[in-house]
Structure formats: structure tokens, C-alpha cells
């Protein structure tokens, strides 16, 4: 795996660069997203993991300017150096047509059932970039080929395809505008396990072939580990921990990541009940002055409930950052475990 900084010149803006992003919704006491810092380099695959309601989907939607009504934002969300949050509707449409695209969770719901696949794939190009029908169809055929489908699909309706095939169509649609960034919002959740593996392999393959950056939103840790270069773990609207996938999952430095890994079912583990994280994430109606995970954290101290930890670089590992007051303890514990 090549490091992205070698493939892209240092001066080029990051494909996706989110800085100190805060999102506030009307009716919520605390921001839904707080100080989210996240970047995706050109051609890099980044996973964003977290449980339901942690704000991972909201983050990926914000990248395309799909904000909930009445949302207030702070910070910047830059795609290829341009701030999405200050874009005019016209610029946003340009961004969505070309630079960035999204793969949705349930292809069956996200594709208009009344239109042929060919229409679905080519419509955006034909309407928004003035490509003629023949050229758009040629591009669609090429993209279908890239995702392993034949041109026959162009004439078919969504109802005639299987879920896996439809998700491939969805991926082909995302590639139509030759985007620099693809946001995949739990693209495999609605598929069965074997199809899931196919789609993930396809995404990895396409990433290599087209050099697109991929932000992969998922709650499946195994999947995140398998596909991504780097991982962001999100909890209650904050980034809890980030780092290279292998290091992060091998030696978590945030108690939440550690707890998540512990609660993953394993076939080779000794029999017994699944470990679960006690309690539930803080509600949006509650003010959280300290660390949002403090109430469920085995390492929590008085400090944790008073002061929210900042996302700081880990000593000795510059690529990793964690937001925990007690990451040192975790590190010692994992070092002990390795020695023992």
C-alpha cells in the first residue's frame, strides 16, 4: 500500500479536508457534531466507524452539502480545496455532478424504480454537463463494465436486478462523473454477506483503478479494517480516535475503540456471552461538559466528567491521534498484554 503523500504533490489540496466542523440542530442542547477533524488524501480509503447516531452519516452528508433543515455549521468542509459550506446552490450541483458522489445504503430505495438503469446512469451527465446521449451511454457502458455488469442492464428496470447488482449500478452511477471522492454510506449494510464481500472487493479494486478517494462509513469494524488505510472512530459527534487501520485495531488507544473491539463477536473466542458496552450514548437533549464516553468508560475519572479531552497526537506515533485523558494507561495495558 503506497502512502498517499507520495502519489500526490504536497501542495495539492486534500481530496477531503474537514476542520473543526461543528453542526448544530434546532432543538438539540449540544451540537450533533463537535470539532470533527477528518481528511482523505487523493486515492486513499478512509473508514469512519461508530455506532448508530454517532454522527457518521451526518458527517458524510455534510460533505455534499446535504444538511438537515435548520442546521447551523461552524468550521470548514473542503473538497479539493473548496469549502462546501459556503458554496452557492449552483456550485453545490457542480460538486455533486463531478467532484464528489455518494453510494447509498439501500440501492433498492435509492434508485427510482420507474426508470430504466440506463436513464438513471446517464441522466445526471446529460442534464448537468450537456453530454449527448450517445456519449453518456458509452460512459455508462464503460462504468457498468468496470463494476462487472453488461450493457444489457441499461435496458432493464431496477426491479429486474438483484440487490448486489443494484449496488453495483449504484457504484457505477457514483463513478459516472469521474469523481475525486466517493462517500460510501454503509454501502453493504442492506446486502447479504457474500454480496457484501464482492462489493467491498469491487470498491477496493475501483479505488486502485480510478484513484478516487473513498470515505467509507460503516459500523462494521471487520469491514473497516479490511478495506481502509486509515480509520476514524466516532462517538457522540466527536472523533474519538484515528490512525492507520492496523495499528488502531491492533492496539486501540481510546477506551471506546477497545470496548467496541471487545464486543465484536469472534468465532475463535472462548464460549460465553458477548461483551457489550454498558449504558447508552448521551442524548442530544443532555449537556455533556466532559468526555461523552465518561459515563460508560472503565477508566473514567473525575477529570473525564469535567473536561472534554482534545484529539491529540499519540506520543511516538505521529499518524495516530486519540481523544482520551487516559490513553497512557491503555497503552501500558496493551504493552503488558503483549509482553505477557
Amino acid at each position, binding site marked *: 500500500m503506497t502512502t498517499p503523500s507520495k502519489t500526490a504533490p504536497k501542495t495539492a489540496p486534500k481530496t477531503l479536508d474537514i476542520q473543526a466542523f461543528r453542526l448544530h440542530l434546532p432543538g438539540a442542547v449540544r451540537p450533533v457534531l463537535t470539532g470533527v477533524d477528518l481528511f482523505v488524501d487523493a486515492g486513499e480509503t478512509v473508514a469512519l466507524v461508530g455506532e448508530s447516531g454517532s454522527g457518521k452519516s451526518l458527517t458524510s452528508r455534510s460533505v455534499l452539502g446535504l444538511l438537515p433543515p435548520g442546521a447551523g455549521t461552524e468550521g470548514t468542509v473542503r473538497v479539493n480545496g473548496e469549502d462546501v459550506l459556503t458554496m452557492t446552490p449552483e456550485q453545490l450541483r*457542480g460538486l*455533486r455532478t463531478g467532484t464528489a458522489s455518494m453510494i*447509498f445504503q439501500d440501492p433498492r430505495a*435509492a*434508485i*427510482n424504480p*420507474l426508470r430504466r438503469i440506463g436513464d438513471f446512469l446517464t441522466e445526471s451527465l446529460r442534464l448537468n454537463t450537456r453530454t449527448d446521449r450517445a456519449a453518456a451511454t458509452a460512459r455508462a457502458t464503460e462504468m457498468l463494465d468496470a463494476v462487472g455488469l453488461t450493457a444489457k442492464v441499461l435496458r432493464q428496470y431496477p426491479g429486474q436486478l438483484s440487490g448486489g447488482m443494484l449496488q453495483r449500478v449504484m457504484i457505477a*452511477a457514483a463513478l459516472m*462523473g469521474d469523481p475525486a471522492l466517493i462517500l460510501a454510506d454503509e454501502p453493504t449494510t442492506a446486502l447479504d454477506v457474500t454480496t457484501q464481500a464482492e462489493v467491498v472487493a469491487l470498491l477496493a479494486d475501483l479505488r486502485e483503478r480510478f484513484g478516487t478517494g473513498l470515505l467509507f462509513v460503516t459500523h462494521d469494524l471487520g469491514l473497516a479494517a479490511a478495506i481502509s488505510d486509515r480509520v476514524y472512530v466516532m462517538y457522540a459527534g466527536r472523533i474519538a480516535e484515528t490512525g492507520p487501520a492496523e495499528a488502531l485495531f491492533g492496539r486501540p488507544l481510546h477506551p471506546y475503540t477497545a470496548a467496541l473491539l471487545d464486543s465484536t463477536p469472534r468465532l475463535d473466542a472462548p464460549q460465553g456471552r458477548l461483551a457489550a458496552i454498558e449504558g447508552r450514548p448521551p442524548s442530544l437533549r443532555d449537556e455533556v461538559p466532559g468526555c461523552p464516553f465518561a459515563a460508560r468508560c472503565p477508566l473514567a475519572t473525575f477529570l473525564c466528567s469535567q473536561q472534554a479531552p482534545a484529539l491529540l497526537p499519540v506520543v511516538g506515533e505521529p499518524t495516530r491521534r486519540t481523544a482520551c485523558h487516559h490513553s497512557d494507561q491503555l497503552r501500558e495495558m496493551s504493552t503488558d498484554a503483549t509482553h505477557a
Partner: protein
Amino acid sequence: MTATVLHRPGLARIRTARAPLYRICLGFVLLVVLLALLAPWLAPYDPNTVDLGNALAGPSGEHLLGVDASGRDTLSRLMTGARTSLLGPLGVVAFSTLAGVAVGVLAAWRGGWLDSVLSRSTELIFAFPGMLLAILIVAVYGEGLLAPVIALAVAYLPYVSRLTRSLVLAERERPYVEAYQVQGHSGLQICLRHVVPSIAPVILAQSTINFGYALLDLAGLAFLGLGVPALTPDWGRMVFDGQSAIQQGYPLSAVVPCAAIVLTVVAFNVVGERWADQVSRRDR
């Protein structure tokens, strides 16, 4: 999917699989439309030829449905009258559907204050009887089909716009709409190319039902002597012309157009209900 117009009791006969009533009504609708289109060639006599010597004659080989008090052939008038009697409602339905869909889509898609303004102002029209509005406009603008058609179109607009609004509100929540947004489509493009086509069947079914009611209203206006000019054959007008003959014991020239009106309205309603029913049962 729910739409109030779609669920009424006592429709079992329309709903059965083979639906003989529906087929009969569809056939009748087609027959009336065909007769209206071909009236100039099919009508046995000129509908306006007066033959006072033969006034109020009963049905005979020459005049199948008899003649009216002015000696005009009832069958010819009925066939030619079908043209104005169907053209009027067609105008009402076309205008109220187009404008109603536009208002409904705009209100649902934009939401906010625009939704409030549009919804409240169309509800205001509800509060005003359509017939009264038509009489008012005809009184101001005089004879002619255009004035009552526009008045009734305005009166029917809220039915369509309200239905459209509720359908679009449901439709815009479906994930494919967002998927199109993400592909860079503008709201207008999504509305025109995807949302409207997918709700169109329901709207058309409602409009078919509206057609029957509009026909009834226009016939009522014509009966009151409003709308169509005096000499133009029109079913409502024929009932009006025939009412004095009823008092003289010759009801036929009034009863025949009455029957035509009733049968056509019923046929349009049955067909519309059936379509609405099929659409609402369609797996969505």
C-alpha cells in the same frame, strides 16, 4: 399510500377482478367521446333546423328520439351537444390539473411560508361554492364557454393541489430523491422528471372523477341559462329548453339529455374510481 378519495365503501362491484360495471362504463365513456368527435358526420339532421309543424313529435323512424318544442331533432342535438358538454369539463379538468399540480408540488417541495400561503389560499377557495363563483364570473363576463370553465377550474383546483401536496410530501421522503440530489440534479429537475411522473396516476384518477362533477356543474349552469350561448346545442341547455314541454305532457326532449348527463357522470366516476383503486393497490 393513502389518499382520501381512494377509499370509499360500497365499491365492491368496481373492485372485483373482472369488473363488468367498469367495463360497461369504460365502453360508455368511449362511445360518448366517439359520438362527440364524429357528431357532424353521424347526426341525422342539422341540430338547429327548426320545424315548428312537427313540434314535440314522439319517437319515429325519422326522428329516433323525437323532436323538441321547436321541432329540432333530439338525437342530432344530443350528439352535437356532447361536443360542448364534454369540451367544457375537459377544459376544467385540464386547467385545474395543471395548475393544481403546479401549486401542490410547489407547496410541498418548498414548504415553509410558501406552503402556508398556498395551502391557506387554496383552502379559501374551498370555502367559496364553485357554482356561485361561476355564476358571478359569467354575470360579469357574459355568455360563452370560457368564463364558466375558468371559474370551475379555479373551484376544482384545491382538490388537485391538496392531493398533489400530500403525495409529493410522501414522495420526497423516498431515498431516491436524495440520491438524485447527490447526483447534482436541481429540485426542479427532480420534480418534473421523477416526482411528478410517479404521482401522475393518482392525480389522473382524481381528475377523471373531477371530470364527471365538472360536467354536472356545467350542465347545471347551462340549465340556468348561463354559459353556452342560446343556440348552441348543449345537454344542460336542452333540459332547460325541454322543461316547458314537460308541463305540456311531452317529457321526452328533457328526459333524454338528463339521462345522458347522469349516465356520463356515473360512467366517468366509475372509471375514475377504478383507476384510483388500481393505483392505490399497486405495490409501491
